[in-house]
């Protein structure tokens, strides 16, 4: 079955695939996860705060983001941001954002919605006695969150956060709609150029599968270790 396959093309394109493609994919994944976590935590705190309006705004945002297909958000955002930028800054022409910045902002906004729900569950898993004890010691709301509640919530939710990041890692391949050279984009370009579609897409699938699998295995190990610490 593999007799007329040419896997030499994979070997030849390895440096391009990994230096260009995978670097982009990993960078986008890492920065999106980090940004998503920071904004997600902020949204979770808004939803859990006593202020009704703040909670409402955060709730609407999360529901809105979760009701749209990611690929549409990426697409629309890329075309809309220059015009929004123009409108905000009052420039005479649409401002240029660049594919990377545009996709990064999109992923951060999108992931923030998902991470916020994870962090919200994590914060709610902390018993009410913990913030009470921190307050009784004289810690302010911000200090209580920073030193007592969030570290515990983060630890409890770490496996779920990493699992979500693995999903994000796969989702970043959707930037192909912007013709960006991420890992899949790079593989795709080589495949088109050399007419070796099956080989290249097969290889790309194996790489995504292997990385995600290893990461999932790592999460299970981590879960076991956290279970012992508690």
């Amino acid at each position: 079955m593999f007799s007329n396959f040419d896997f030499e093309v994979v070997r030849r394109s390895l440096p391009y695939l990994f230096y260009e493609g995978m670097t982009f994919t990993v960078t986008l994944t890492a920065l999106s996860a980090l940004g998503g976590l920071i904004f997600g935590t902020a949204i979770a705190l808004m939803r859990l705060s006593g202020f009704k309006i703040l909670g409402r705004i955060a709730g609407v945002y999360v529901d809105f983001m979760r009701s749209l297909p990611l690929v549409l958000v990426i697409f629309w955002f890329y075309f809309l941001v220059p015009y929004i930028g123009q409108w905000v800054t009052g420039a005479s022409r649409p401002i240029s954002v660049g594919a990377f910045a545009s996709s990064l902002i999109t992923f951060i906004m999108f992931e923030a919605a998902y991470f916020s729900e994870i962090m919200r569950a994590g914060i709610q898993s902390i018993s009410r006695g913990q913030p009470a004890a921190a307050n009784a010691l004289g810690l302010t709301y911000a200090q209580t969150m920073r030193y007592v509640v969030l570290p515990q919530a983060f630890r409890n939710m770490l496996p779920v956060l990493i699992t979500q990041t693995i999903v994000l890692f796969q989702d970043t391949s959707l930037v192909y709609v912007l013709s960006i050279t991420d890992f899949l984009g790079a593989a795709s370009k080589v495949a088109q150029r050399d007419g070796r579609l099956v080989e290249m897409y097969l290889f790309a699938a194996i790489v995504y599968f292997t990385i995600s699998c290893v990461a999932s295995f790592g999460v299970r190990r981590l879960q076991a270790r956290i279970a012992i610490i508690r």
Partner: protein
Amino acid sequence: MIEISHVDKWYSPSFQVLTDCTTSVTKGEVVVVCGPSGSGKSTLIKCVNALEPFQKGDISVDGTKVNDPRTNLPKLRSRVGMVFQHFELFPHLKIIDNLCLAQQKVLDRSRDKAMAKGMQLLERVGLKEQAQKFPANLSGGQQQRVAIARALAMDPIVMLFDEPTSALDPEMVSEVLDVMVDLAHEGMTMMVVTHEMGFARKVANRVIFMDRGEIVEDAPKDDFFGKPRSDRAQKFLSKILSH
């Protein structure tokens, strides 16, 4: 030191937990609050450092009004030590860091100073060897002693205890009570919600008996144990002292 006057608290318009509670704790006094469960004693003690809000009346601690919106609550709370029924140590921090966190973040003590103070207090409650462990590795009695040390690390002017031995296995109750008795003998001002009548007899100056959100009896220890004036207190005492 603590002035509680005419405090009312409702959880909902139809459910009143505290009704016209008035009492006080003077400097150096040990006051034990007892009563059947659901009588509002824990709620009352939590009102003292504003962990629970209340709708009517006033509470002041060392002259500072707790229910005044302009009061700097974190600052006030840092001077009022509190020990909880379920210890509430921070599980993600080592024992010594449990003692240092608020010292450094609230009182702005240096790490060295906080550590020294923390170790000194751990030694006092007999847990110096446990400093580098995590709370989950300690027994309930040890955790509660750490919680007391953590509160003392802030150099409080008064200590509040909310059923400090209720969640403990029976054999661990005395190790916690011993620490509290020592504290009382040193002249610490204490307000203690507890069912431990032995502790009350030993160190309390006054006993407050609560039932259904009201302070039914507020009497010097000997009067309370000698002959309580109210029927409800008499019944309560005969029940818990009959065994």
